[in-house]
């Protein structure tokens, strides 16, 4: 069976800086795949190449068809991208953020969906009318995740969900991601600097180094491999 998302030989650049050099990776349906690596290795760019927010060459296929166009078409195709540094509309209320998450869907009545995501984040209903900018960093990251779920995506892409958050909150977020995957079969592509928690969550991982895939394999293997751990993962 072919993967839900596949990148083949993807290159991307920002002006003179080549950020991705022939990256190939696969995200099988129903799995969590992690992309690891140091700062500037091209992790974020990998996600941006998928969502069409950076110019790229190479082939990206999603659900058996080539993925083309800008972020609007990618969102419509069923990919929810939670960008680095939260991804909320800080001036809009919590519930408006959630409604925007469902923008690509046709349903007008979103109450059922809001209730559904509120099961994961029980604080949402009571703060529904608060501007997202008044939430704490952890809550904003959770709101960004909740908003992505409102789209009922086939693929969820998370960019550094741990960034700037307390370890307890990071564990909570990864627990929810894992449960979403186990319970609802949600496919996840997560980019993360915190290799330890990412490897604990993902089934497969890719380690990027200066825009190339340096190592890839099942998370368990990467975790056990001391030389990989020491040279790429830093623990």
């Amino acid at each position, binding site marked *: 069976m072919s993967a839900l998302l596949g990148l083949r030989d993807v290159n991307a650049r920002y002006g003179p800086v080549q950020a991705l050099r022939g990256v190939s990776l696969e995200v099988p349906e129903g799995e969590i795949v992690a992309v690891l690596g140091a700062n500037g290795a091209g992790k974020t760019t990998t996600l941006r190449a998928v*969502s069409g*927010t950076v110019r790229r060459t190479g082939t990206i296929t999603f659900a058996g068809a080539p993925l083309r166009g800008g972020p*609007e078409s990618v969102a419509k195709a069923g990919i929810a991208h939670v960008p680095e540094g939260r*991804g909320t*509309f800080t*001036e809009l209320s919590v519930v408006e953020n959630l*409604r*925007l998450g469902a*923008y690509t869907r046709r349903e007008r009545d979103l109450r059922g969906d809001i209730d559904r995501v509120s099961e994961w984040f029980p604080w949402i209903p009571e703060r529904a009318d608060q501007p997202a900018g008044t939430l704490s960093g952890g809550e904003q990251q959770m709101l960004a995740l909740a908003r992505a779920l409102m789209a009922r995506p086939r693929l969820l892409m998370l960019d550094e969900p741990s960034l700037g958050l307390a370890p307890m909150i990071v564990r909570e977020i990864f627990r929810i991601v894992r449960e979403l995957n186990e319970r609802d079969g949600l496919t996840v592509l997560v980019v993360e600097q915190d290799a330890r928690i990412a490897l604990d969550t993902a089934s497969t991982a890719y380690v990027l180094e200066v825009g190339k895939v340096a190592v890839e394999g099942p998370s368990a293997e990467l975790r056990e491999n001391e030389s990989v751990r020491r040279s790429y993962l830093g623990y």
Partner: protein
Amino acid sequence: MADFMQQVVAGLASGSIYASLALALVLIHRATGVINFAQGEMATLSTYLAWTLTTNHGWSYWPAFVVTLLVSFFGGAAVHQGVVRPNEKGSLLRVVIVTIGLLLLINGAVTMIWSGEVRAVQSPFPTRTVEIGGVAISIQDIGTIGVVLGTMVLLWLLFQRTKVGLAMRAAAVNPAEARLVGVRVTWMLSLGWGLAAVLGAISGMLAAPSVFLDPNLMAAILIYAFAAAVLGGIDSPVGAIVGGLTLGVGLNLLGTYVDFVGADLRLPGALLVILVVLLVKPSGIFGKREVKRV
């Protein structure tokens, strides 16, 4: 007292005209981050269209009004797509200069088509007055206030209660993020320019009956609208409305009760408001202070 109330209502009527154009400026500033200097001229063009439909083609007022609003909407959106958007890639200054160019272009075109002659425009409202609690109030003032308030309510419903309104707000506050959730940001911005043109057209058509129509119809009103928008906070729609009404009433009362402030000093009064607000509280009454992180 009766005279005072009369002046207040008259002030609210001119204030609502300022408010409408101020709201147009605010909409565009929120969406595109620039002041559209051509907003007034676009409104003048719309007003001439309405005038032509009623005077030369025998349309009655309200159908001409509605058709003008529709044409203005598509005109505004077209200006965004055709003129503003191609220049958005550069600096904001470039867009500002483009709008100034547009101002000159439209002004020239209007003068060429309709000549500089001053035209009388019929009012959709009777010029009679009605007595309310001993105060004689002109029906035209009430009608003007009513049309603008009605428009504001409709706009509020659009932005707060509809999916497209929410998408427009999202596109304005965070375009990159909006694209990620699937919002076609450019279309939303064009929609915003279209709505702004509609607001300008309303402002122009309501102003024309009392100040007559000529190619510079909106030149002064644009200054009042700037003052109103600055007073309320350039990014605050509520501020634009409150600012417009405050300015209208304030200038009218000053002109009536302070001897040396005649009609001639109204415009400098508005400029003074801009100056003082920018010096004392640049964010205006309702604006948020912009904090730039480095």
